[in-house]
């Protein structure tokens, strides 16, 4: 597991008013400690991962319970269960994780909670590390739950504490919505007092409150709606919803929240725009009266927000309801800001300049033009599989056996990088677990050999129902589980197959092959992807099965094995190209390993990058690669 701080124990210092540079996610972790949250659950996912990771590193000492749950749904269920015993709980996930947990979310809103219950959703505008850029503030509207939106690390900490207060006051869970630029920005955070965690809860049997059969759900819906009326009052008087700047003239007003607020203020200053600014930190329910009052004080209101016009739509409705004559600018109607990607001070300044008919003080067009010329033929550098990554060997084997005929649905994890040439493995990728489900539809529709690719952590997260489905409906698919013994992409968190819990205690290793056999899969084999000949034989056999088959490609993540070797004081001896090399380029054309480069027209192995995995020696037709200490 990665620790981001020099020492995560910095988070445990009981030193109020100490000022520390923290990542937004670390600030939330500190907020957890200051709020007395005692149960923390998560499934790792960028940009939320460091919340769970920071807590994992200190949970034992802090006296709270932390777990990496098998998926976000289970994570929210565990948190919801604990909170219904009066224990303060928090569950953290990336935006798409909330889709997985949405079933629980929607009805947990009805049962409510007794102890504070916080649901952190970390959105990823710009898809820095995600498959989509959905705006999860709509989950607040959909579930009708309160939602807080911090704009920097300090506020992320404060809001974690406030969210617990609101949650306990209203007895409903509260959403804390961050974006990548909040979760992954470092800023100074001033500590408050640490609270004592309390893990001792009590379950009070209350069927009417907790068992959501229709006869109980209907009255609970009524209660919930009443509760949310109280939430509206909280929002109206919330210190997080405040006018941060009063303009001199009454011409312009800016309404903004989250990371967009930072850009809005800087952009207004860049343009020298005289405008009042309303910062919204509690964006569900909206502080209607406060917004109406603000609107009445300006002729033109500009809503600055990232992704969807979530605030804007509501501001427009409020303007109508309160008969404000203010003109509202944003993304609906004539669009001044993009609904795609991240905003920036520049993008906001450009929008504001168009609305207010002003000239930008910086000639961005000129910078763009000059820059485009400079980077015209710049080679791209997308993320790639590391040198020595076992997935490269697995994909090589798949290409050899499945070739162009097979279809390769893939899944969420490092192995999605297999789409890069020359491996080209990955024909469809949608969401966690979907490789196996889509593979079955593709197989039924085409009868083509279909190899669904999935990682070990993703297998436990979302593949089990798909696997049972394949057995039940006799789908002719091969599931390739790329088991690298960790959740690699998000920072090497443990999972049910690793035999280690989030708090570092040993646990039963859940065996992927036994699970598959238990589900009724007749052909289940485990191979070492670096033994390519043997792996090829097995995969070929698997594809010949009349029903579903599972092949587990098992080899640890190279980053972990290299670290392990260094710890043991073992030296990695990189491979070398010998004079037998004919420069046929087979190694480069087949593997695309970053350690294989071309220097003055000749193949070369980078000493720094080569981890001596030994894959290239197996593909070299001239046996021209030697000298390394192959790790196996």
């Amino acid at each position: 597991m990665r620790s981001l701080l020099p020492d995560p124990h910095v988070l445990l210092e009981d030193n109020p008013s100490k000022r520390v540079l923290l990542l937004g996610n670390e600030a939330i972790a500190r907020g957890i400690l200051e709020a007395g949250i005692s149960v923390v659950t998560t499934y790792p996912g960028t940009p939320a991962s460091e919340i769970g990771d920071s807590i994992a590193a200190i949970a034992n000492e802090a006296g709270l319970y932390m777990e990496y749950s098998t998926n976000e749904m289970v994570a929210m269920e565990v948190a919801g269960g604990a909170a219904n015993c009066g224990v303060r709980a928090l569950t953290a996930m990336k935006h798409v994780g909330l889709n997985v947990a949405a079933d629980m979310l929607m009805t947990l809103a009805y049962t409510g909670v007794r102890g504070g219950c916080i649901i952190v959703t970390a959105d990823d505008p710009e898809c820095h590390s995600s498959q989509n850029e959905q705006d999860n503030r709509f989950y607040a509207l959909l579930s009708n739950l309160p939602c807080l939106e911090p704009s920097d690390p300090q506020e992320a900490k404060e809001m974690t504490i406030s969210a617990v207060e609101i949650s306990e006051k209203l007895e409903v869970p509260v959403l804390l919505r961050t974006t990548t630029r909040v979760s992954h920005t470092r800023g100074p955070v001033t500590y408050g007092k640490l609270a004592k965690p309390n893990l001792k809860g009590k379950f009070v049997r209350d069927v009417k409150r907790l068992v959501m059969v229709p006869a109980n759900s209907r009255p609970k819906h009524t209660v919930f709606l009443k509760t949310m009326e109280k939430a509206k009052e909280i929002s109206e008087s919330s210190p997080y919803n405040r006018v941060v700047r009063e303009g001199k003239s009454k011409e312009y007003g800016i309404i903004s929240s989250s990371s967009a607020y930072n850009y809005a203020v800087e952009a207004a200053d860049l343009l020298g725009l005289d405008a009042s600014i309303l910062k919204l930190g509690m964006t569900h329910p909206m502080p209607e009266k406060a917004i109406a009052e603000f609107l009445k004080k300006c002729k033109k209101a500009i809503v600055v927000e990232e992704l969807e016009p979530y605030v804007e739509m509501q501001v427009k409705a409020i303007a109508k309801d309160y008969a404000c004559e203010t003109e509202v600018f944003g993304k609906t109607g004539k669009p001044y800001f993009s609904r795609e990607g991240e905003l920036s001070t520049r993008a906001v300044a450009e929008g504001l300049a168009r609305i207010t008919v002003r000239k930008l003080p910086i000639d961005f067009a000129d910078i763009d033009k000059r820059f485009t010329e400079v980077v015209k033929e710049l080679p791209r550098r997308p993320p790639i599989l590391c040198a020595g990554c076992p997935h490269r060997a697995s994909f090589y084997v798949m290409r050899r056996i499945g070739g162009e005929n097979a279809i390769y649905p893939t899944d969420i994890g490092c192995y999605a990088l297999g789409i890069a040439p020359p491996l080209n493995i990955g024909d469809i990728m949608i969401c966690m677990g979907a490789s196996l489900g889509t593979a079955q539809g593709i197989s039924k529709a085409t009868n083509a050999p279909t190899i669904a690719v999935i990682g070990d952590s993703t297998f436990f997260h979302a593949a089990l129902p798909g696997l049972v489905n394949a057995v039940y409906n006799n789908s002719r698919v091969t599931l390739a589980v790329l088991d690298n013994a960790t959740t690699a992409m998000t920072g090497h968190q443990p999972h049910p197959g690793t035999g280690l819990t989030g708090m570092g205690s040993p646990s039963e290793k859940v065996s992927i092959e036994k699970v598959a056999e238990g589900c009724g899969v007749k052909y289940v084999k485990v191979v070492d992807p670096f033994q390519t000949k043997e792996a090829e034989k097995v995969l070929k056999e698997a594809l010949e099965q009349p029903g579903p088959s599972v092949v587990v490609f098992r080899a640890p993540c190279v980053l972990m094995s290299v670290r392990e070797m260094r710890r043991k004081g073992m030296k990695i001896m990189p491979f070398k190209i010998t004079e037998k090399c004919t420069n046929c380029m087979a190694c480069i054309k087949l593997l695309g390993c970053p350690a294989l480069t071309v220097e003055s027209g000749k193949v070369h192995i980078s000493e720094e990058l080569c981890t001596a995995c030994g894959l290239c020696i197996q593909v070299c037709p001239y046996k021209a690669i030697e000298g390394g200490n192959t790790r196996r």
Partner: protein
Amino acid sequence: MKEFNAVLAGVGGQGTLLAAEILGSAAVKDGLNVRVSEIHGMAQRGGAVTSNVRIGEKILSATVMEGQADVLLGFEPLETLRNLKYASDKTTVIMSDEQIPPTELAAKGTAYPNMKEITAKIRRFAKKVVVIETEQLASEAGSRLTSNIVLVGALAATESMPVKTESLMKSVRELVPAKHVDANVKAFKLGYDYMKKHA
């Protein structure tokens, strides 16, 4: 106090995140307001990565605007080029000469672009360009993995950053792996001296 904006550009695995954290934590030591932007997750796997560091009383957002970097700290020549839009005639570019060829080049059998051409392009965009042989200085410091700290030392020597050099040094000591403190401190000094001599 004058606002300070830095863009750190490199390849996943080169230690840009750590370098940015060192700059940010030194600013906090000096009681300043700071924002450091980072990108984690998928992008880190050998891909192009950038970090931004912004220091100043009124700073709120973590990202630097085009043309507004005071310093562009390039950990790799092509990545320095890729981020030139943040530079302008007020920018000092400090660049490592450590080349990491993108796999695309190997696949096409193309050579890494000529260093002279790269620096010429940068010169057209920036006030000043200093190329540092970080690999050599890092090896001299005792570990090739300290290249990132060589660059941090070089940045300290420009004195464009409103942070005390001793605060930076203190952050280096606190944030690098305990086993490698000495090598990193040496790397910082070598980078610092190099910049003083060549700037």
